[in-house]
C-alpha cells in the first residue's frame, strides 16, 4: 500500500479517534479543547500530507477494506483528483484544529452536550474523507450520507431556536433527496457497467440518452449539495446556524466534496462528455453566481451573507466546470484542462477564504455575540488582528490582485476568452456572455464585501455590546492567520499551485497545461505568453515595496505627523454612530436596481409611542417558485389519502370485499 494511502488512513483514524475521544467530554468538558480538536487538526494535517503525496507522485493506489457487502467490499482509491480534495479538506480542517479550541470554550458552560459537537464533527470529517477516497458507489453513498447526517446533527446543535430546527430539517430533507438522486445516477451507470465498483462504471458503454440521464441525476444530486440555484434553499438556512468552525467546514469544505462528486461522476466515471451538458452547467453556474451574490448583498446577518456568497462561489466553480465540459466535448483538450484547473483553483481558494471569513464571523460572534451587521462597527480598532485577517479574506473573495481569488477568476476568464477556438458560433457567443456575468458577479461581490467590512470593522460601533468587543484568544487568531497567509501565498505564487493542480486534469482529462508554467515561476501563462500572462509575484513585490517605503518614510519622520481632529463632514456637527450608513442603507441602491429579483416586504409602521419604524425583509424568490408547490402537493395528497382511515369498521370490511372482488375479476 502506498505511503499516500497510509497517510489518508492515518487521517481517517485520527478523525474517528477524535470522534470517539469526545465521548470523554461528558465527564471532562475541557478535553474537547485539549484532546478532541487537536486530534481533529492532526487529521487535517495528515490529510494534507496524503493529498500532497498523491498530487506529487501522481500515481494511483487502491485498497480494499474488510467491510461492506460480501460481493461488494468497500474499496478505496487515492489518485490525483482525490488527493487534491484531500488536501483541500485537510487545510481547512487543520485551521479548525487551531481555531476550534478557543472557540468552543464558550460552549463548555452551555446546555448543549459537548460529545455531540466533538463526536459528529469527527464523523463529519471521516465521512468527507471517505467520500473522496471511495472507489465504489456503495462506500461512496455510505460515506456521503454519513457526511450529511453528521453535519445535520451539527447544524441542529443549538436546537432551542425553532428557526434552527427548521433549517436543520430542511437541510436533512434536501440532503436526503439529493442523495437519492445520486444513488439513482450511480444505478444507471451500474446497470450499464454491470457493477457498483467504479472500475466497472468507467467501462460502462453508455448511449447519449442514458449518459444524459445519468448526468442529469448527478447534476441534480450534487448540485443540490453544492447549493446551486434554485436548489440552494437549504444552504443559507443551515450554514449560519451551526457553530462557526463547523460553518467554515460546511461552506468551505463540504460544498467542495459535492464538487468532487460531480467531477468524479461526470469527468471520470461517465468519461465520454458532451458539450450540451457543458452549456447547461455553465448556465446554471452563471445563474447561481449572479443570484448568489445579489442575495448575499442584501443580507444583514453576517453568517447568512457568507452562506449566500458560498452559493455565488460554487456558481463560479461550476462555470469553470461547464467550460471544461464544453471544451472537452468539442475536443479542445488543452482548453478543457485550463477551465478545469481554473475551477479547481477556485475550489481551493474558496475553501481558504470562506473558511477564513467564517472564522472571522465566529470571532465577532465570540466577542460580541452579534451576527447582525447593523449592530456592528468600528471593530477594526477593537480586534485589529481579526480585522486584518478579515480584510485579507474580503480582498480575496472580491477577486482583487494580488490575492488568490483573483487568480482563479482570471484563469476562468482566460478559459472563457478562448471560446473563439470553437466551431459552433452559438457557443462562441454564449460563453463570453457567461464571462460577462462572471465579471458582474465579481464587481457585485466587491460591493458586497465593501459593505461587510466597512460596516462591521470601520466607522463607529452601533451598539453597546459591540463597543465592548475584545481581542479573541491566540488560538482563534492563529487559525485565521494560517488561512490568511495561505490566501496570500495562493495569490502570489499561482505558478507553483498550478504546477501541483495540473496533475489532476492530466489524470482525469488526460491533458495537462504544459505551457502554463513553462516560463518560470514569475509568469503564469495559461495558453501562451503572447495570449495572456500574469506576473503575480512582481505585482505583489511592487505593492509591498512601495508600501514599506511609505511606512518607512512615515516612521523616519520625513513626513510630517498627522494631527487628530474631529471629522469635517462638510462642516456638519461631529457625526454620531447613528448617523453612519447602515448595511441596509449601503445595499439600497443595488437593491433598487435589481428589485425584480427579490421578494421584498418594506413597510414603515408607527409604534405606539408614535415613533416610526422602518421594517424591511428581503427574501429570495426560489422558495415560492419551486419549494412551496411541492410541499402543498404532498400536503393535499396526504389530506386525501387519510380518508382511507375513516374509522368505520364496516367501510374497512367493504374495502376488503371490494379488493377481493377486484382481484378475483382480474385473475379470471
Amino acid at each position, binding site marked *: 500500500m502506498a505511503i499516500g494511502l497510509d497517510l489518508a488512513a492515518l487521517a481517517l483514524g485520527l478523525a474517528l479517534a477524535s470522534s470517539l475521544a469526545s465521548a470523554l467530554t461528558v465527564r471532562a468538558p475541557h478535553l474537547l479543547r485539549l484532546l478532541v480538536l487537536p486530534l481533529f487538526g492532526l487529521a487535517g494535517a495528515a490529510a494534507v500530507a496524503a493529498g500532497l503525496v498523491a498530487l506529487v507522485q501522481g500515481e494511483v493506489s487502491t485498497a480494499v477494506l474488510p467491510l461492506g457487502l460480501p460481493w461488494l467490499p468497500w474499496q478505496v482509491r487515492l489518485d490525483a483528483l482525490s488527493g487534491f480534495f484531500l488536501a483541500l479538506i485537510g487545510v481547512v480542517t487543520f485551521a479548525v484544529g487551531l481555531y476550534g479550541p478557543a472557540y468552543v470554550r464558550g460552549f463548555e458552560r452551555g446546555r448543549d452536550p459537548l460529545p455531540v459537537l466533538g463526536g459528529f464533527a469527527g464523523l463529519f470529517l471521516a465521512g468527507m474523507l471517505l467520500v473522496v477516497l471511495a472507489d465504489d458507489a456503495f462506500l461512496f453513498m455510505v460515506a456521503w450520507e454519513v457526511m450529511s447526517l453528521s453535519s445535520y446533527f451539527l447544524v441542529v446543535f443549538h436546537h432551542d431556536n425553532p428557526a434552527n430546527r427548521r433549517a436543520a430539517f430542511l437541510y436533512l430533507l434536501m440532503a436526503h433527496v439529493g442523495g437519492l438522486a445520486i444513488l439513482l445516477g450511480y444505478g444507471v451507470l451500474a446497470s450499464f457497467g454491470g457493477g457498483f465498483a467504479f472500475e466497472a462504471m468507467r467501462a460502462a458503454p453508455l448511449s447519449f440518452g442514458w449518459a444524459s440521464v445519468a448526468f442529469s441525476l448527478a447534476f441534480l444530486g450534487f448540485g443540490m449539495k453544492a447549493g446551486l440555484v434554485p436548489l440552494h434553499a437549504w444552504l443559507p438556512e443551515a450554514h449560519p446556524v451551526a457553530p462557526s468552525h463547523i460553518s467554515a467546514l460546511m461552506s468551505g469544505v463540504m460544498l467542495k466534496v459535492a464538487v468532487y462528486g460531480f467531477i468524479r461522476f461526470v469527468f471520470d466515471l461517465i468519461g465520454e462528455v458532451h458539450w450540451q451538458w457543458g452549456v447547461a452547467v455553465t448556465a446554471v453556474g452563471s445563474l447561481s453566481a449572479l443570484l448568489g451574490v445579489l442575495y448575499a448583498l442584501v443580507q444583514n446577518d453576517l453568517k447568512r451573507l457568507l452562506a449566500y456568497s458560498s452559493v455565488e462561489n460554487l456558481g463560479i466553480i461550476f462555470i469553470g466546470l461547464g467550460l471544461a465540459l464544453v471544451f472537452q466535448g468539442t475536443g479542445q483538450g488543452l482548453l478543457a484542462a485550463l477551465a478545469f484547473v481554473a475551477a479547481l483553483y477556485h475550489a481551493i481558494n474558496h475553501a481558504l477564504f470562506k473558511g477564513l471569513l467564517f472564522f472571522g464571523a465566529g470571532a465577532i460572534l465570540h466577542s460580541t455575540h452579534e451576527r447582525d451587521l447593523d449592530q456592528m462597527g468600528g471593530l*477594526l480598532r477593537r480586534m485589529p488582528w481579526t480585522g486584518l485577517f478579515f480584510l485579507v479574506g474580503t480582498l480575496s473573495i472580491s477577486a482583487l490582485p494580488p490575492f488568490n481569488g483573483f487568480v482563479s477568476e482570471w484563469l476562468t476568464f482566460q478559459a472563457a476568452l478562448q471560446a473563439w477556438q470553437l466551431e459552433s458560433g452559438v457557443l462562441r457567443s454564449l460563453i463570453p456572455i457567461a464571462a460577462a456575468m462572471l465579471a458582474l458577479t465579481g*464587481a457585485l461581490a466587491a460591493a458586497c464585501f465593501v459593505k461587510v467590512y466597512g460596516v462591521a470593522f470601520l466607522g463607529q460601533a452601533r451598539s453597546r455590546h459591540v463597543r465592548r468587543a475584545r481581542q479573541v484568544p491566540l488560538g482563534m487568531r492563529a487559525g485565521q492567520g494560517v488561512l490568511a497567509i495561505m490566501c496570500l501565498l495562493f495569490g502570489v505564487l499561482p505558478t507553483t499551485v498550478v504546477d501541483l493542480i495540473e496533475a489532476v486534469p492530466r489524470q482525469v482529462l488526460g491533458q495537462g497545461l504544459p505551457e502554463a508554467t513553462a516560463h518560470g515561476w514569475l509568469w503564469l501563462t495559461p495558453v501562451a505568453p503572447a495570449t495572456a500572462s500574469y506576473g503575480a509575484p512582481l505585482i505583489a513585490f511592487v505593492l509591498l515595496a512601495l508600501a514599506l517605503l511609505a511606512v518607512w518614510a512615515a516612521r523616519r519622520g520625513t513626513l510630517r505627523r498627522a494631527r487628530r481632529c474631529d471629522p469635517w463632514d*462638510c462642516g456638519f456637527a461631529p457625526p454620531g454612530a447613528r448617523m453612519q450608513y447602515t448595511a441596509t442603507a449601503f445595499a439600497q441602491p443595488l437593491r433598487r436596481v435589481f428589485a425584480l429579483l427579490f421578494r421584498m416586504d418594506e413597510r414603515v409602521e408607527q409604534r405606539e409611542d408614535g415613533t416610526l419604524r422602518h421594517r424591511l425583509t428581503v427574501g429570495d424568490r426560489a422558495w415560492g417558485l419551486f419549494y412551496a408547490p411541492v410541499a402543498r402537493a404532498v400536503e393535499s395528497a396526504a389530506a386525501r389519502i387519510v380518508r382511507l382511515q375513516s374509522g368505520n369498521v364496516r367501510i374497512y370490511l367493504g374495502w376488503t370485499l371490494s379488493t377481493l372482488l377486484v382481484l378475483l375479476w382480474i385473475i379470471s
Partner: protein
Amino acid sequence: MDYLLIASTWGLALLQALLFAALAPLLVGWVRKVKAWLQNRRGAPLLQPYRDLYKLLGKEVRVAHTASVLFRAAPYVVFIATWLAASAVPLVAVALPTAAIADIIVVVGLLALARFFLALAGMDVGTAFGGMGASREMLVSALAEPAMLMAVFTLAMTAHSTNLASVVDAQLAGGLVLRPSYLFALGALILVALAETGRIPVDNPTTHLELTMIHEAMILEYSGRHLALMEWAAQIKLLLYGVLIANIFLPWGIAGSLAPADLALGLAAVVLKLLALGAALALAETVLAKMRLFRAPAFLNLALLLALLGLLGHVILEVGA
C-alpha cells in the same frame, strides 16, 4: 540573453511608468483649460494641477479621531494600485516587459483594488457622506466593470489575446480594418470611462453638493498628502482610460521598437491623441448635464448593451465560421 538589453528595456518601462504619473495632472489641466475656454473663461493655468499637488503634499495632515489605520493606509494603496495598473498600459512603446506583468484583466483588477480601498476609506471615518459615496461608487462600478470587461473581450477575441501589447500589435498588423464590433466597443469603453473616472454625466468632479457627489464624498475627510495621493491617483486613472481608448483603438504612431526616433514619435502621437480626447471630454462635459443617481444605471446599461452588441457583432459578422 543580453542582460544590458533587459536592463534597458526595464529601464524604459520604469521611465514610461514615471511618465504616466507625470503626465496625468497635465491632462486634467488641459481638460479644465478647454472647458474654461468653452465657457468663455480664461481658466486656471495649464500647470495648476501640479501646483495643487505640490501644495497639498506640503500641508499638514489632519485625521479624524474616529479614523482607523486603514484610513491612513488607503491613499498609498490606492495610488500604488492605480499607478501599477497604469504602468502596464502601453503609453509610448509596445515592446516593454511591464506589459507582460499585467494583461487587461489584471489592470481592471488593480483598479478594482484601488476602488475597494477608496470605498473602505470613505466608510472609515463614519460620516454619512463617506458611506453614501462608497455605496454609490460600488453601484456605479458594479455596473461599469462588466461593460468594461466585455468591451475589452471584444478586442481580446479579435486579437486572440488579453495582453494589451499583443492587442495593439494585432491592431497594427491588421492595418486599417473597419470592424463594427470595434465601433460598439469604443462606445462602450467611452461610457465606462466617463463613469469610472467620475466625470459628468455620472459624477461631477468639481462639486461638493451632497446629492451629486460620489468620488468627492469618499475623499471628503482627506487632507494634505493623503488628499494629494488620492487626487493624483484619480488623475492617473483618467489618463489611463484616455490612453486605453487612444492606443488600443487608434494605435497608429505608437513605438513598435525601442529606437529613440520611434519613441519620440510615439510620445508625440500619444500626446496629440490625448489632447484631442481631452478636448472632446471637455466639450462633452460642457454640453451634458449631470444625471440623477438612479439614471446612472440606465446610462451604464447602455454601455453594457453596446459592449454586448460589439461582442455579438464580432462573433456573428467578423469570424468566418
